[in-house]
């Protein structure tokens, strides 16, 4: 990438951001939409700063929930994928259930989870793990199963055992797929966390969005939504950065 392209890559989104929010403000003024229905971005940003002390405990709880759940879900997903791609029986036994976990919206399970385990942060973390590990598992398993045959033959020609073949060839070959899974896991974890906070308890950004909407504190509700967006984008960027650092050869 040339210097100019890189500069455009930074400036263009910033210009877009400013244009979008300017338009938003203008539309509100022209059509005289009341603030309690739809506040302007400036009012939302103001609320994000002014009320930050009130928001912070909830932001922190959401961050902890998302990152802990994510950090547990990723290794579980990869490990399980390694196991099921190595042992056919295990694959046959588990495959339908993993698809079940990927396609079933977790919000359907949360009330029951809370009924069993209460409202604490642990339940929310468990919910995040259940919702997000399966997608890492699916993508990793795809990667592990699609390694070029000649690479496997290379390991056979060296009489490599399973562990050697996995660690030296299969795992590195599938890193692009694994990272796709990890990125999706980050997105699923954020979504799952907010969904669980919607359903129960009065902690975390999700619960605050519900609360402020009910009390017509639309500005504050939007502020919380923006905080969620910032957390999600940060997690995604961190994963992308790690991907670029680790997979240098595929570029």
């Amino acid at each position, binding site marked *: 990438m040339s210097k100019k392209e890189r500069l455009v890559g930074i400036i263009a989104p910033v210009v877009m951001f400013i244009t979008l929010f300017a338009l938003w403000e203008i539309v509100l003024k022209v059509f005289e939409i009341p603030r309690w229905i739809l506040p302007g971005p400036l009012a939302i940003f103001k609320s994000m700063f002014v009320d930050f002390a009130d928001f912070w405990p909830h932001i922190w709880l959401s961050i902890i929930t998302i990152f802990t759940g994510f950090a547990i879900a990723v290794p579980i997903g990869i490990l399980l994928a390694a196991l099921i791609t190595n042992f056919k029986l295990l694959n046959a036994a588990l495959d339908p259930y993993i698809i079940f976990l990927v396609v079933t919206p977790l919000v359907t399970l949360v009330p029951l989870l809370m009924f069993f385990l209460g409202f604490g942060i642990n339940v929310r973390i468990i919910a995040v793990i259940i919702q997000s590990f399966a997608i890492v598992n699916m993508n990793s398993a795809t990667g592990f199963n699609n390694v070029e045959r*000649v*690479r496997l*033959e*290379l*390991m*056979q*020609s*060296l*009489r*490599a055992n399973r562990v*050697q073949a996995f660690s*030296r*060839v299969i795992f*590195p070959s599938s890193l692009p797929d694994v990272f796709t899974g990890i990125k999706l896991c980050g997105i699923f974890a954020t979504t799952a966390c907010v969904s669980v906070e919607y359903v129960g308890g009065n902690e975390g950004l999700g619960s605050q969005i519900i609360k402020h909407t009910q009390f017509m504190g639309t500005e504050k509700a939007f502020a919380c939504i923006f905080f969620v967006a910032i957390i999600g984008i940060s997690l995604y960027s961190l994963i992308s950065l790690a991907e670029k650092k680790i*997979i*240098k*050869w*595929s570029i």
Partner: protein
Amino acid sequence: MQEPKIKFNNVTKIYKTNRQIITAVKDVSFNISEGDFVSLIGPSGCGKSTVIRLLDDIIKPTHGEIYIDGEGIPKRKKIPSEQIKKMGFIFQQPNLLPWMTVRQNVALPLRVFGLKGEKWESNVDRLLKMVGLTEYSDAYPTEISGGMVQRVGVIRAMVHEPEILLMDEPFGALDEMTREQLNIELLDIWRETKKTIIFITHNVEEAILLSSKVYVMGTNPGRIVSEVDIDLPRPRTLDMIITKKFIDFEKKLTDLIGEIDLSKIK
């Protein structure tokens, strides 16, 4: 008579899928003496790649026995490590691992075989030097040319000092000039190290230039249809290609392969 280095005794490989049964190779028998340079030539689908994959225990035969130095390769169990270490496999695509440097790629067999120590490490450096890649040892495969990549593929198969090299159309994807250059380098390596080489190709000229004996293989099912001893003097050089004897061999082999193609049409 001296025991053959490699012996195939009526080896057949049949693949069964849900829809059909494919005989990849049928009743293949041959002996290869120690230090020989033998080529397998034939149209695609004649099972020439299957033959060396059977020898390297990448696939197991359906019938028949394969011996290395008089010892049979186990029919069900994994090949013993003493046997596999006698062989080095060179792939059609260079098949280097892109996340490893040139040096790490060459050293891969040492790591997998668990060969440690000064002797083996210096082997890596010696081989890199032999093919002129010392200064590229820390480069990644994507950063070097196609010819260099294939040289790395060749020396990777030699790093654990195998007695037998199995080469699966190793220079097929390279341009004519690079291929000729690598063929000459390969002849030098063979003369110096006295390894037994099985070389797979579909290029008649290459087969004659390199080998002492050429097996011509046919399709449906894959089998050996004839063998031709190439008694051109050694060392072989590129200017031999225009000698009468070379051209006669070329004609003979081309005719033999042509007959296979004709019989396929019938």
